[in-house]
């Protein structure tokens, strides 16, 4: 492994807290959703396997600990969706000025939390994060 600095060059950037947080959260939630996709396909395969296979999978998917997983996935989905749209707007070279970016970071936080609560409520879960 070379001794020169390697990507991501975390040490060369002056990162104020909100830029760092919004960026790394987008990554984290993306990876979380990738694992959520495993759950989705596991469930789809169980459904395709018939009523017995689905009932077996449902027992696993209904474990109390899974509520935490679903809450985390809802948080991840809502954040990644809203933050992703912010990235797509950036890709059109709009909203890149510092005050705009700070404002959109707050917008992302507010909109995604509202979305999380709506989805968690519709899913019959307690507000996101609660067991």
């Amino acid at each position, binding site marked *: 492994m070379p001794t020169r600095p390697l990507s991501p060059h975390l040490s060369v950037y002056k990162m104020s807290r909100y830029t760092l947080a919004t960026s790394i959260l987008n990554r984290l939630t*993306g990876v979380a959703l*990738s694992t959520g*996709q495993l759950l989705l*396909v596991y469930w*789809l*395969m169980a459904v*395709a396997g018939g009523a017995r296979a*689905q009932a077996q999978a449902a027992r696993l998917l209904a474990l109390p600990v899974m509520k935490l997983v679903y809450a985390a996935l809802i948080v991840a989905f809502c954040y990644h969706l809203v933050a992703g*749209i912010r990235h797509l707007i950036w890709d059109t070279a709009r909203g890149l000025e510092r005050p705009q970016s700070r404002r959109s970071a707050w917008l992302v936080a507010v909109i995604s939390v509202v979305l999380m609560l709506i989805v968690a409520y519709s*899913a019959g879960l307690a507000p996101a994060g609660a067991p």
Partner: protein
Amino acid sequence: MSLRSPLGRVLGLGAAKEGVHHWWVQRLTAVALVPLSIWFVVSLLALPSLDHATVIAWMSQSWTALLLIVFVLVVTRHSQLGVRVVVEDYVHGAGAKTLTLVVVGFAHVLIGAAGVFAVLKVACGAAP
């Protein structure tokens, strides 16, 4: 003086011979996933229950099956591109990096294929 050949400059594909392909596909799949993922979450939440008969009836509708297949394929591609960048950033050492990328790539193909297979099986009425 540029050391790039005229052809290289015109193609604009850089040293990796890919140009902006990765970046562009990541964006295309992201744009597609905005409506697709919202559709998926809303329709899943709208199901009265998740018991076998209900889910089978839902997945057997042509539009549901079609959109589910597209959703699984696009999500898999988007996920693979995203996880690839994460691995490239955080897994150091050429051997470990290549190995991780290969495993992650294989896993994504398997997951995508399994999702499409499951939906097709149900949609064709082959689920027991």
